């Protein structure tokens, strides 16, 4: 079969050119023909469970699932008929018979595909009683909540957890039904990546929400509330508010957060520049000492994975704190000192593309003078919800500039949001540190892009630095196998638990798929490209803070570094 062979089919009397090998659903989606469905996700293998995407095919008996039926030349497809409508409505009604008919916790912006479908099809809810009322609620760390009474057994979460190489979510037979349950195996634990959340069509899996606490803090007149937002948010949150994928909304986002009542808005990208400085230093040191690989540690899911599944690699993890933690620490020390504010009265709120970041801020070893560097983490979706709730329309809002001093950042600090960004930023700075000269060409295109594993060898001063960049935990496990055989295979390894890096994070807007991830990432690189300062070490605020504040080993250690320790299972069932 020729893979790119063009064929023509007919959908609803319309001739459509498509490529052999595609499914009916894929062609329909590309052509904006609406076919409902719950279990299909382009990141995952086709399961064809929900039976909502049924269509008719001329001269073939019965109904056919469009997600699992491949197109054939001259195929004539009908996507709406009384028969199709009847099947969809009854199946949807049956789904709802295992789901609460109303959801008190329904929060606009947090995305429930199922409720939208139910509304659209105006399905009956009076014929069957809910069979799942007594199903339990599970909590995975401070990050994810699984209300199994809302689960419709589509199994996307099980598949994505398996794809992540974790297999924490399992299927178990209980009371005659195979149900999704967290594993009881003490050798398995959730790494809080939240991919189950972004692949759940019903809101059964959700981030544990903290926006209520943040609203209270804003109301509290004794508190100075300082927000920071991660690099990737500026190219993703626009989607939730009706803008095209990859829309760059940095200054509107700042204005929106200000309107919520934030006292200051700083940029996590500034924190990322500090991370770059420290991490470049660690990389150089490890190369000199011969203790490579140096493995990134910005991704809290990855760190948890190493601590739980591969503690033997702990000494390879960069001790450099993640950008949000360094920035939070600086806000409560450097900035508090400067502004003469008691750091106890500062509440730092991070807007993150991630649910594992909620876990990261709870780590005791990060505390500075008994204070958490960051008090609350909200996901992109939670912030969207706050915008909707407080009637803040990003499309209309007047843009505002970032606050300073902790808002000035380099382009390198922005590309942290895409897989490869951390290594690229570190290399730009490491090059300077090693050679004392600046790179003439800043882009390391080999480490960019959506591929799960990217490998490159970079020559600096006649020395080859071997690099692996990984996104998606399943891919990380492949690299681990490689270094198990040959520990010196790479000098630097960047790992992000989610596909595409933070732009595909578990706290990001839904839907998230490969095309959307790509657009979000491209916009980050565009921001970098257009920035005057594209190197962390050229960022004036970095220079100033190192000069005025981070001027001793002890201080640098206190604010910018941490430690890791082997972990036992944390999730209790």
């Amino acid at each position: 079969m020729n893979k790119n062979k063009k064929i023509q089919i007919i959908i609803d009397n319309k001739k459509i050119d498509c490529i052999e090998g595609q499914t009916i659903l894929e062609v329909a989606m590309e052509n904006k023909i609406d076919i409902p469905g719950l279990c299909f996700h382009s990141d995952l293998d086709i399961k064809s469970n929900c039976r909502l995407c049924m269509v008719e095919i001329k001269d073939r008996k019965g109904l056919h699932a469009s997600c699992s039926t491949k197109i054939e030349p001259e195929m004539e497809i009908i996507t709406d008929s009384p028969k199709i409508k009847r099947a969809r409505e009854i199946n949807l009604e049956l789904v709802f018979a295992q789901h609460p008919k109303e959801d008190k916790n329904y929060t606009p912006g947090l995305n429930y595909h199922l409720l939208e479908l139910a509304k659209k099809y105006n399905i009956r809810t009076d014929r069957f009683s809910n069979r799942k009322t007594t199903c339990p609620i599970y909590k995975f760390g401070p990050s994810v909540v699984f209300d199994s009474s809302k689960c419709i057994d589509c199994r996307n979460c099980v598949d994505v957890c398996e794809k992540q190489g974790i297999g924490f979510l399992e299927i178990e037979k209980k009371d005659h039904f195979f149900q999704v349950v967290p594993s009881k195996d003490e050798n398995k634990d959730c790494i809080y990546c939240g991919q189950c959340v972004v692949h759940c069509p019903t809101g059964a899996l959700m981030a544990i929400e903290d926006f209520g606490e943040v609203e209270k803090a804003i109301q509290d007149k004794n508190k100075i509330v300082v927000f920071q937002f991660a690099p990737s948010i500026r190219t993703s949150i626009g989607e939730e508010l009706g803008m095209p994928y990859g829309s760059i909304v940095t200054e509107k986002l700042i204005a929106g957060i200000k309107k919520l009542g934030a006292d200051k808005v700083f940029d996590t990208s500034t924190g990322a520049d500090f991370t770059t400085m420290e991490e470049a230093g660690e990389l150089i040191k490890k190369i000199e000492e011969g203790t490579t690989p140096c493995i990134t540690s910005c991704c809290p899911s990855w760190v948890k994975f190493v601590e739980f599944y591969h503690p033997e690699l702990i000494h390879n993890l960069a001790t450099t704190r993640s950008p949000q933690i360094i920035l939070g620490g600086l806000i409560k020390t450097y900035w508090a000192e400067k502004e003469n504010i008691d750091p106890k009265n500062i509440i730092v709120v991070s807007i993150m593309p991630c649910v594992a970041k909620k876990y990261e801020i709870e780590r005791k070893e990060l505390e500075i003078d008994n204070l958490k560097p960051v008090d609350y983490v909200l996901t992109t979706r939670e912030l969207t919800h706050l915008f909707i709730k407080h009637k803040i329309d990003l499309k209309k809002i007047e843009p505002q500039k970032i606050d300073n001093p902790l808002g000035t950042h380099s382009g390198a600090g922005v590309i942290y949001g895409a897989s490869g960004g951390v290594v690229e930023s570190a290399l730009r700075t490491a090059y300077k540190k090693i050679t004392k000269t600046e790179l003439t060409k800043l882009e390391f295109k080999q480490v960019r892009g959506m591929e799960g594993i990217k490998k490159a060898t970079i020559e600096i001063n006649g020395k080859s630095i071997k690099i692996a960049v990984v996104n998606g935990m399943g891919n990380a496990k492949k690299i681990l196998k490689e270094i198990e055989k040959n520990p010196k295979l790479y000098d630097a390894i960047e790992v992000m638990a989610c596909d595409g890096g933070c732009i595909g994070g578990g706290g990001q807007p839904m839907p998230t798929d490969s095309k959307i991830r790509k657009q979000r990432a491209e916009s980050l690189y565009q921001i970098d490209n257009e920035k005057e300062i594209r190197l962390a070490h050229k960022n004036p605020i970095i220079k100033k803070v190192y000069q005025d504040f981070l001027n001793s080993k002890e201080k640098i250690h206190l604010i910018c570094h941490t430690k890791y320790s082997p972990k036992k299972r944390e999730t209790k069932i």
Partner: protein
Amino acid sequence: MNIKNIITKLEENNLKGRGGANFPTGLKWKMVKEIKAEKKYIICNASEGEPDVFKDGFILENYPEEVISGIKIALETIDNSSAYLYISKDYYRKFKKDLEKLIGKHPITLLKKTGGYLAGEETSICEVIEGKRIEPRIRPPFPSQSGLWHCPTLINNVETFYCVAKIAKNEYNKTRFYSINGDAENEGVYELPEDYSISRILKETKNWPDFDFFVQSGGGIAGEILLPNELDQMIKGTGSIIVFNRKQTDLFSLMEKWINFLIEENCDKCIPCREGTYRIAEMIKKKKIDKKILDDLFFVLEESSFCALGKGVASPIRGVITKLLNE
């Protein structure tokens, strides 16, 4: 025994699969033989998991030589192949020794079935052997294109292999095996011409009741319900006839038995089968049938279930309700 032209012979004899789906055997063999692949598999399905059906067990007990001979013919016909004899737990216990002796050093692995009814469905068998969760696969690709470990795989019922051996020896008389039980007078397995009608089978085996009755034919769960005046037809599905004394049969317990079995045995993968079956069970247990709801559930089960198990839920229940329950 000349097996060179076996596929032609299968076609000439118009042999159809005896697992219940009636797919032309010669065509299936041809597809697996002709597709190019480094490795191919043959699976003999003797997992017989439907209650009250026992003709496969009878064949294993009485004609194991023919069965193994049929598998060997497949091994010789299909290049680069090895075989599994996939067999229910009960039959494994009973016939393991005899079968192992017959298999000898041939590349045939005797494999005990894990799981229940669904584990007998051909794509589910592939999942079982690969050590995965027992669920049917999306078709196409069919096992003959991509089955076990993604290799072309020939899956036939144990009786089909028996027939292949008979055809190879020119001893095939176009017969098939029928298990008869229930309220039948002369329970057992009978080998009779494949074109016999149900009434003729019952009469020739002296099983035509002298009381008011109905039968379930083609399977002890998914088989269809037929009244005495509907028996002038051949069996659809697997070779089984269960006779019920109409007066003495509690129809709701009968339906409850089926539906409990289905709830327990289905894989819960697709919505119509998982939820539809459960909702039918609710009504049957309460003995309160809402015909409109039932009709809706039958509709999605038959029209939108993922596999044949779900598609087959409706038929026997519909039969009881429309033909036997007088309201």
